[in-house]
């Protein structure tokens, strides 16, 4: 469990990192917090010839809300989000802070980065799920300039994304608050990769007595190669109704019926469907109680 030999490069700034990536080609890999990559290298499942360390690049660890939009720098750690104050996050973004408790364990959260997690694109990663749920925009820089990629277009498959080999994520932008949202997961052990993770963002009519749901979004991790939105479940929410167990159960059931999850050593397809049902129901209840 020692990695194969590689050449280490440290980038001073984004331009330098991109130059290195362009120079070194496919054999290069960006390293930030190293929480996924190093483990894969230790098993020699990943063996990049070059590592481009972006960890020392300044100005990429921000967390900046302007009331309606939240911008998070690629090098911001999970832990920085976990301990961010309401003022830093801005109203309606506490979901992101709460979700961090599901990311691995504390030591992982203190080193792992938001950009790294998105670029790694694990099907059950919390940031990937959050990005898909909340229509985040991923800002990437490359030799051809900077572009913004919608989260819905970003994740292509197992560990593959829209990023070109010479591009790096600099920032992720969450374009709007999600005051009635929640993310829940299930794994056998605290901190494990989720078997299934579910996130919901409900549109709640605050003015009507008894709180009514007017619509919402539902996203799942662990049921497909990438985190997915579930239109069938969202359709149930869009029909609207009293916020409560009946609506949430129907929404969850629509999701469980719509997905075609994989079965593996961590859980059969049926079990993943059952978890989907439970987690969406619970996430809806949690979201509406905010």
């Amino acid at each position, binding site marked *: 469990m020692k990695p194969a030999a590689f050449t280490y490069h440290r980038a001073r700034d984004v331009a330098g990192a991109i130059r290195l990536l362009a120079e070194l080609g496919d054999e290069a890999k960006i390293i930030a917090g190293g929480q996924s990559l190093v483990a894969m290298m230790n098993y020699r499942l990943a063996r990049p010839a070059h590592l481009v360390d972006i960890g020392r690049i300044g100005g990429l660890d921000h967390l900046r809300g302007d009331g309606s939009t939240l911008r998070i720098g690629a090098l911001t750690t999970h832990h920085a989000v976990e301990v961010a104050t309401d003022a830093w996050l801005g109203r309606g973004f506490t979901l992101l802070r709460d979700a961090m408790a599901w990311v691995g364990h504390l030591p992982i959260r203190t080193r792992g980065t938001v950009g790294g997690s998105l670029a790694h694109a694990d099907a059950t990663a919390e940031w990937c799920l959050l990005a898909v749920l909340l229509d985040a925009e991923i800002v990437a820089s490359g030799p051809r300039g900077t572009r913004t990629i919608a989260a819905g277009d970003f994740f292509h498959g197992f560990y593959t994304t829209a990023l070109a080999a010479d591009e790096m994520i600099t920032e992720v932008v969450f374009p709007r608050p999600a005051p009635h949202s929640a993310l829940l997961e299930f794994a056998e052990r*605290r901190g494990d990769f989720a078997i299934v993770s579910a996130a919901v963002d409900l549109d709640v009519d605050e003015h009507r007595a008894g709180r009514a749901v007017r619509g919402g979004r539902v996203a799942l991790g662990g049921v497909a190669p990438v985190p997915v939105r579930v239109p069938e479940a969202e359709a149930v929410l869009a029909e609207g109704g009293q916020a409560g167990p009946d609506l949430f159960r129907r929404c969850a059931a629509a999701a469980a019926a719509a997905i075609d999850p994989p079965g593996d050593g961590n859980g059969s397809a049926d079990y993943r469907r059952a978890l989907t049902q439970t987690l969406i129901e619970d996430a809806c209840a949690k979201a509406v109680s905010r």
Partner: protein
Amino acid sequence: MSAHTTESRHAPAGRYVGASVPRREDPRLLTGRGRFVDDIRIPGLLHAQFVRSRVASGVVTSIDLSAVLDVPGVVAAYTAADLDVIGITAVLDRPRTQFVPTEMPILARDRVRFAGEPLAIVIAEDPYAAEDGVEAAAVTYQVHTPVTSAEQALEPGAPLVHDEAADNVLLDVSMFATEGIDEVFAEAPCVVRVRTRTGRQNAVPLETRGAVADWDDRDAQLVVRTCTQVPHQVRTVMARSLRLDERAVRVITPDMGGGFGQKCVVGREEIAVAAAALRLRRPVKWIEDRKDALTASFLAREQRYDARAAFDRDGRILALDADIVCDMGAYSCYPFTAAVEPLMASAEMPGVYRVPAYRVRGRAVTTNKAPSAPYRGVSRPQYVMVMERLFERAARELKVDAVELRRRNLITEFPYSGVNNITYDAGSYLDSLNLCEQVLKDEGWYDLKAAAAAGGRHVGIGYSCFNERTGYGSGAFAQRKMSVVPGFDMTEARMDTTGSVTITTGTLSHGQSHETTLAQIAADELKLDISKIKIVQGDTDRVIYGWGTFASRSVVVGGSAVRLAAVKLAEKLRMLAAGLLDTTPDDVELDDGRVRRRDDPGRGLGYAELADIAYLKAHLVPKDLEPGLSVTATFDVFTDGTFGNATHGAVVELHKGTGRVEILRYVCVEDCGVAINPMVVEGQCRGGIAQGIAGALFEQVTYDEQGEPSATGFLDYKVPTASEIPDVAIHHLETPSALTESGAKGVGEGGTIGAPAAVLNAVNDALAPTGVELNDTPITPETVQRALEQAS
């Protein structure tokens, strides 16, 4: 923690035994100043890794290491043919109809028997180059169909793992068969049957295996620093394997990060490392990585039971009949052999119950999986689970409360000679069950369970009652017909001229706190401040001989040897002082670092003064005494040992939506006789219970059809963390052992033994309304979820 915890065990003033003396090893371990194998640096140190078989079964048709030697940094690479060392063969004193000895070569020669088996050793300037070298090895195989389960192994015409074991059975022993047992079953009003399977586990010491070997020209000795529970046995096997005099091998064990049995057997890698160091005449280090630790070290616990029990109308057990098959993997471990699990289960299964008739067949089956070693509890977690399930089943059939049914059957008169030819010394079987039940009732768990059921929740309460034989001496191991018979222990106690005492022990702490507990025993005998006592362990040149630490033997056997040596040293001090104080040894006594006259306590000599005379003024030593202050003592057990006992109670809630098993409460009522150090006892209980819960709910290594193991890291091998393990309430009872010098019984394994049964019973209690019964472990959330869903 419970009110009973330590208060009930106040030690007499001025005495150490019975007091929660802070662990003396902690300051160094907690400040990063411990010294483990991997901390050892020697100038010129080389690093080893192993080329391992990629196939589970087959014949190696070629190994080409030429590319390995071309890798920058690689110094050497050896195959079995290059090293020419003798393999390890563990044998029993049994006929071939019962036991088939098999050899575990140090490096596989031609046959490979599990994926991960070492084929060649690569030595390099650093660990990275060593792994590069391993990658460069070119091995070709003729691949055979592997045997990946005990069922497959036992099928007629199954492929053979070892040619000499014609049916893949390494041990087949029917240890007991009470005459007329079939009639008892035929006539009994209540017969219940339970079939269980338990998953293959890894003991997972946090410190993986490892060794640093170095030839010392001046001492003409191979010095091997390795994390083993049994340094003297490693020395014996290593010397024979390398064709050296035993004197020419010194095994040193520094601080250790756990063993749990995985390190109480002699591994092959450390011998290959020693052989390489010997050839190269350079120090070589091998540190097992986690992947190899999970896939290619020693595993345990994969067993299946088919058991029946007969009861009369009053709920008294009449007979027990069990068929036990243990999947021991590819090789027999030294010195215990592949028989260790089935023999343990066969010998001890009746446990704490009065079982009048008993029949058992125990088999060890060989398969193409990493081999097995003893793991904390050895079969007892499994057979206790089976026994406790049988009682639960019978209680349901007889419509009797399961706790009451146990009460009617627990052994209450001691000594008790069982149907399994074991004589049990006194224990608190009934009291511990009563107290455990009372605690759960007083804390309101029965009320909560009733309320939960009414609210549609699934809460269950489960118990397990068990005993734990500790102090396996030469007598007990000889009864198992081991041909290398562990058991006794030797201690040397030596006082220096400052009155400070060095005590050696052949037992070896790999986390058990011997530096504290053994010193407590000696300090009380020597009436000496504990800071003046140093315990030395884990060095075959410093410790005369010993059997290391396993089977909860340290305080029972090692502690008794320490106490005997301390008594002898005290005696020598009394004789010396008596001569110098003009009286007889009977008329002097030890008191707080001095020997004084009983009739005139003001007249006495401090230990330093006595030691000064014993060594530096030997001309003053009375004529009938030898100079110096050193003694040795030996302790062994020829009876059936001493039995600790406990009752565990678990309260669980099953979560319908996810199948999660949440342990709401865990209570342990333990009796280990005199607790030398209650804090250490509680640590043993908690750690053991955590490992027991791990087996019940989390951990398992599975193999696919090609014999490829499922778990190569902690992602897949689900060791529970502090988040999954509940707080444990511990209550103590104390039935002192008459066997041991201190009154203590061993307590190293009890937690692990009791936990799976208590958890499994609690889960099934919660499932009772559904009609589903689970008897296989680990119980996964998916299984529970399915059970709850089917029922609703």
